[in-house]
């Protein structure tokens, strides 16, 4: 602001100062500025409200008892707040098992994809592989490959290998969500790490692999961590593969279980569903709160030059 005044020259400053706030034009300008500030605050409030309101509504519904829910609710707040829907879910094998399944499957795919992506990212960034550009292009396109176009063929193959209805089949399929972005992210991270450290160690006689393990990986830990978080979120998000490959309820993942939860012959018990939704959303919300910066920098790596 002051810089701008300077550039504009002493001329304006002199004429502007003495009468500040007294002329009608300036009062009008100040009112306009205040109006703009209020408008901006309203816009921010609207953005936050739209982002978070559905969660509040879910929370509200999840705190109702099944009885109150089926009697039909009038009004925005339930009459009696109760955690009975949570208790019901947490004692329901059809929710607990899937929750555990999801955690295990997503962790395994995350670890696998981060390890593969670290090796691949390093190779693409450092090892002057011929055709690195083509490889990178393929990895990126794999990230956009239509998931449903994978489902049919994988279904047929898994059926023959006994991988249908098994965690292993899902872990492999989830790689299509996690591996491309993790590889891309780590490659762009390695691009920014100066080579001098590695070169020094290599001249000292260390092999490439030792350099990778003892020097590069420790330096890359933040990027590894970031890609792990993003990979986990993306794997946790899956519905299409789970609904296509899994058949028995105790093999379900959490998202699949939620869709099947609370369905009864007569009514959909949203209180049960929503309590489950809160339970599987919480870990993700915590991740976002604690790793916000990481996630943002990971998502935007390479998006802007």
């Amino acid at each position: 602001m002051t810089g701008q005044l300077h550039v504009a020259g002493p001329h304006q400053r002199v004429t502007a100062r003495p009468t500040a706030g007294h002329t009608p034009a300036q009062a009008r300008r100040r009112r306009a500025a205040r109006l703009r500030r209020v408008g901006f605050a309203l816009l921010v409030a609207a953005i936050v409200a739209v982002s978070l309101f559905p969660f509040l509504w879910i929370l509200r519904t999840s705190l109702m008892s099944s009885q109150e829910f089926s009697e039909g609710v009038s009004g925005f707040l339930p009459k009696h707040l109760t955690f009975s829907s949570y208790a019901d879910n947490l004692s329901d094998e059809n929710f607990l098992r899937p929750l555990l399944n999801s955690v295990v499957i997503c962790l395994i795919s995350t670890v696998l994809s981060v390890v593969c992506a670290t090796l691949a990212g390093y190779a693409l960034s450092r090892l002057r592989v011929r055709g690195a550009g083509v490889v990178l292009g393929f990895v990126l396109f794999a990230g956009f490959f239509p998931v449903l176009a994978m489902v049919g063929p994988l279904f047929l193959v898994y059926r023959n290998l006994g991988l249908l209805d098994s965690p292993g089949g899902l872990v492999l399929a989830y790689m299509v969500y996690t591996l491309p972005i993790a590889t891309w992210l780590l490659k762009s991270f390695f691009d920014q790490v100066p080579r001098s450290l590695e070169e020094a160690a290599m001249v000292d006689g260390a092999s490439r692999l030792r350099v990778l393990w003892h020097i590069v990986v420790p330096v890359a830990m933040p990027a590894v961590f970031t890609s792990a978080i993003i990979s986990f979120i993306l794997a946790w998000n899956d519905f299409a593969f789970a609904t296509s490959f899994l058949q028995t309820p105790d093999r379900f993942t959490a998202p699949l279980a939620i869709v099947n939860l609370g369905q009864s012959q007569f009514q959909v018990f949203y209180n049960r569903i929503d309590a489950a939704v809160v339970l599987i959303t919480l870990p993700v919300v915590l991740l976002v709160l604690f790793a916000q910066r990481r996630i943002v920098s990971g998502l935007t790596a390479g998006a802007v030059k």
Partner: protein
Amino acid sequence: MASGVTVSPSGVTASHGGSRPPLRRARAAAADRRLGWLLLTPTLAILLAVTAFPFAYNLWNSVHQVNLTDPNGGGFTGLGNYRSLFADPVFRQTLLRTLVFTAVSVATQIVAGLVVALVLNRSFRGRGWVRAAVLVPWAVPTVVAATSWKTMLDPQTGFVNQLLSALHLPGADTNWLGGEWTAWVAIGITDAWKTVPFVAIILLAGLQVIPDELYEAARIDGAGAWHSFWHITLPLLKPALLVALIFRTLSALLVFDVVFILTGGGPGNTTETLSFINWREFLVSTDFGTGGAVSVVLVVLSLLVAAGYVRLFRTDEGATER
């Protein structure tokens, strides 16, 4: 290798590496390349197994008659599956609906994302919290997004209708997911709620690399906010815009989860999308021939979209250089 250890205290190493004999350097480069392919192998093998292989298999199935209910099938049908697919009015309608949905939702999401990004680009108190709040819908599973909005839109117990009736507004008894148009609106809202944050984050990163001096210079030249937006912000935001466009177009084209959970393709099959039809052919009709053909169409469409954007990006870069 051994000589390296004896010769160099690590301070001078960089220049030493540069003056290695050319033959040894060439050999080291060749070893690097071999190691490179070795390190790439797991990633490439996995990604080929889950993309290239299914594509080839789909291609094969799409010109054969493959149905799990018909063990004697498997005969070659040439383009028969494609012909019957494109002759089917349901498929043609679905193709059209999916394309329209893609165009409308991508356009609105980009505009909404840009607004959010411009807001987050200002500095104000609590910006970190606002950014976290915006990011949460992106991070929750699509199932959560879809279930939340399904709860909100439930005709009897949902928030939207209760609000409408409390305000004595019309439409308080709308069965949102029961009508074609309102169901599409619900799908669009849910999808936007989940993905606008992503667009906003990408565009915000683009905004943050635009140097402030440009705006200051424009202000000094007497340019208004609107003028700076058109002539500075938008042109410099183009790379980020293109990234957001590619991501969003491809995933809108392939939308599945939201539709599956919100409407199951109904009422009738008016909210089915290409991916949904693909799922139905595979897992309900177990017709892997027709399903394969749909998959091939999906892959070709996404390749076209990706290639189109890349082309747009290239010619655009050429233009700015000139």
